[in-house]
């Protein structure tokens, strides 16, 4: 088998293994959450019998090990389970499958993430590469100063400043990004403008600096000096000598930031009242709706693992040592 294939398969297996460990961690940390759903719903006054009956209905009377394997087993068949809420023993079961709860939210999150990434990634890479090429120039110093400022500002502050400037003082965009399933596409884009801008500012700063550092590191290699000493044009030096070796570091930078767009945006969702997965998870934690919490946590972990896996695979397939073994 080609060594690249072997390595990629190894990484895949490793990714699955990580996901498994993460599921254990998610499950056991939820076990340690104080309080439980029955208490949260039925209140302090409920009789012991009602509580016990309700616990039985939810399966909470089973030992943790059994519940873990039930969860994982169902998960392996693509079943995320059923939400705890809406099941109150009122006789009518209005509870919904977790998929139905999480699905639309995930769609929203991915929508905002993609919208942001489409602008932010090319922008950050371009700025980073240019800043590295013209290191020390006025352009570089300016970009550095601006990005340092945005990095130093907390997200919610960036968000409020944008709201102030672009929604209150100059009412261009709406300050609430409350979309529903039937909101048409362009209307969505319009309503997401401010949250997307906030996220763009935050990750462009980060991504641009990381790209700049990676490229500067690369440009210091002796083979780049050699290319210059061969009298190649600066363009050629970058395109044929630096870029082929830059994919791995750039892929890492991008993966890290894309993951952030899915996993780390809860603050922005709260500020703009955007119905994303982050909000859902926060709500679910408050109500102790364990199946939903678990599903969200797993989605977050899975995002990290998959994106890093992709970055890993890119660095593997662009590594000449692996591509052309001895």
């Amino acid at each position, binding site marked *: 088998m080609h060594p690249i294939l072997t390595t990629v398969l190894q990484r895949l297996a490793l990714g699955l293994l990580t996901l498994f460990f993460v599921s254990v961690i998610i499950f056991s940390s939820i076990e340690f959450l104080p309080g439980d759903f029955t208490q949260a719903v039925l209140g302090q006054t409920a009789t012991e019998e009602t509580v016990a009956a309700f616990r039985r209905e939810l399966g909470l009377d089973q030992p943790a090990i059994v519940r873990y394997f039930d969860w994982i087993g169902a998960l392996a068949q693509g079943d995320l389970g059923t939400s705890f809420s809406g099941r109150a023993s009122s006789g009518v079961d209005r509870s919904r499958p977790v998929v139905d709860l999480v699905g639309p939210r995930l769609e929203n999150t991915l929508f905002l993430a993609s919208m942001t990434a489409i602008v932010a990634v090319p922008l950050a890479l371009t700025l980073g590469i240019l800043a590295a090429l013209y290191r020390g120039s006025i352009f570089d110093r300016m970009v550095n100063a601006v990005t340092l400022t945005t990095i130093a500002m907390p997200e919610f502050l960036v968000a409020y400043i944008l709201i102030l400037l672009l929604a209150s003082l100059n009412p261009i965009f709406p300050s609430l990004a409350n979309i529903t399933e039937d909101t048409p596409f362009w209307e969505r884009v319009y309503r997401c403008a401010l949250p997307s801008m906030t996220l763009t500012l935050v990750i462009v700063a980060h991504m641009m600096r990381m790209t700049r550092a990676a490229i500067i590191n690369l440009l210091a290699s*002796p083979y780049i000096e050699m290319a210059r000493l*061969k*009298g*190649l044009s600066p363009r050629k030096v970058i395109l*044929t000598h630096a870029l082929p070796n830059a994919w791995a570091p750039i892929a890492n930078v991008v993966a890290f930031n894309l993951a952030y767009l899915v996993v780390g945006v809860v603050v922005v969702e709260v500020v703009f009242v955007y119905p994303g997965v982050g909000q859902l998870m926060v709500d679910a934690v408050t109500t102790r709706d364990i199946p939903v919490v678990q599903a969200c946590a797993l989605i977050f972990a899975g995002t990290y693992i998959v994106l890093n896996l992709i970055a890993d695979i890119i660095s593997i397939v662009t590594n000449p040592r692996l591509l*052309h073994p*001895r």
Partner: protein
Amino acid sequence: MSDDILLHMKNIVIDGFSDESWHEIIKGVDLTLKRGEVLGLIGESGAGKSTLGLAAMGYGRPGIRLTAGEIWFDGQDLMTASEADKQSLRGARIAYVAQSAAAAFNPAHRLIDQTIEATLSHGVKTSAEAAEDAKSLYAAMDLPDPENIGFRYPHQVSGGQLQRAMTAMAMSARPDLIIFDEPTTALDVTTQVNVLAAMREAVDRFNTAAIYITHDLAVVAQMADRIKVLRYGEEVEEAETQEMLSNPKHPYTKSLWAVRSIEKPAETSDDYVLEIKNVTAAYGSVPVLHDVSIAVPRGKTLAVVGESGSGKSTTARVITGLLPPTEGDVLFNGAPLPAALKGRSKDQLQRIQMIYQMADTAMNPRHTVRETIGRPVEFYLGLRGSAVDQRVSELLAMIELDDSFLDRLPGELSGGQKQRVCIARALAAEPEVIICDEVTSALDQVVQEGILKLLMKLQRDLGVTYIFITHDIATVQAISDEIVVMWMGKVVEQGIKDEIMQPPYPEYTELLLSSVPTMDPGWLKGAAAARKAMSIAEETGKA
């Protein structure tokens, strides 16, 4: 006559940026080179050789500023030339061969593409012509399978082969001038000879002028018609090679010859302080030492020589217990030592100390000299308080440093001073045996001499035994009593210095010794020819 001059650098001043300000690193140097002539540029590291060599291409590394002077290359002043003009010269008429070929080749492209890249981009030849020519250059550089080797990637060929390929790359556009910047420093001696010979031949064949930068006198003697000695960014002296070798004028130049001038009559004894008996050792499942037996005479210096990878350092690790052998014993004063470090008593640990090549990494950067030397004094000798201070002072005096060094951190010491402190730290334990692993390899010639003389003096005064691991034959000549030659994890021979250094040699010792450049400018031709004859004989023998 003046048409004959290819490069004329006049009163060059170059600044470098460090510690937040600009410093002069080349202080008004002149350099003239005729067509087809090879100028050797020699000096210690940091003397400014690379900076000056690169300036000949009108190039300064980031943080370097060509401040004043003129660089006339074939009627054009590179000091004032536009970036575009310099670009069209580089790679076409002036080429560069870097120290580490492994780092200077782009890992992402095939050798041949990189070899002909400059030639193509300057429009010197068509792609097909250049590729054909590259193959003939590979052949001229004695690369194996010249037709196909170019289609390999840099990591697929050896260091010596890469260095030849880089010379071929420099030659591709048939430049008038090549700057060789220590091109063989990273190679083993036995590889170095062949690469040197191929370079010399190529330069002669195309009548290319060259600036050959090195810190190795014997190498420059083989390559250069004329030698310029550089120190602290200033010229010390310049002369024809013969003249420079036979009659160096400046005291500094004379001191460069110094290590080779140390002589010590070999003595030996039958009283062995340490005996390695039939040791076999492996890293994991990779066998590294095969049935190695070495006897170390008490109070003498045993040199262990061999190329990198021959098992010298592994032998040291077995002796110190860092790598327990899979078979065999280490006897200390006749009694077997526990194989692993953990099994050894404090007393046994104290008796064998080690000094490393990289004094930098061997010292804790946050410990002062007082702490570095004081710790083993406390640990092994059990001294406390002012007794420690007094002992540390005594040790400092032994290594010829005064008490003003006590509170310095490693960062405030020169390379030679750091190595001295490491010696004092080893001595602090009052050991019987000190293992010195390439302790002078990272140092400049003059500093090397100082350290070697110090080690010899300490041996006379204290009677300590050295196991001196090195790949440098000049060092071995200077200080050893007995020599062990290692090759591929085996001991080729052990004996008293005068016997080992005299013919007849076993085949490998012969190869090793004959690979070490001598100051005789004719040496390279003879050595390379002998080597060719040998490999031809080998091939016909096989056939």
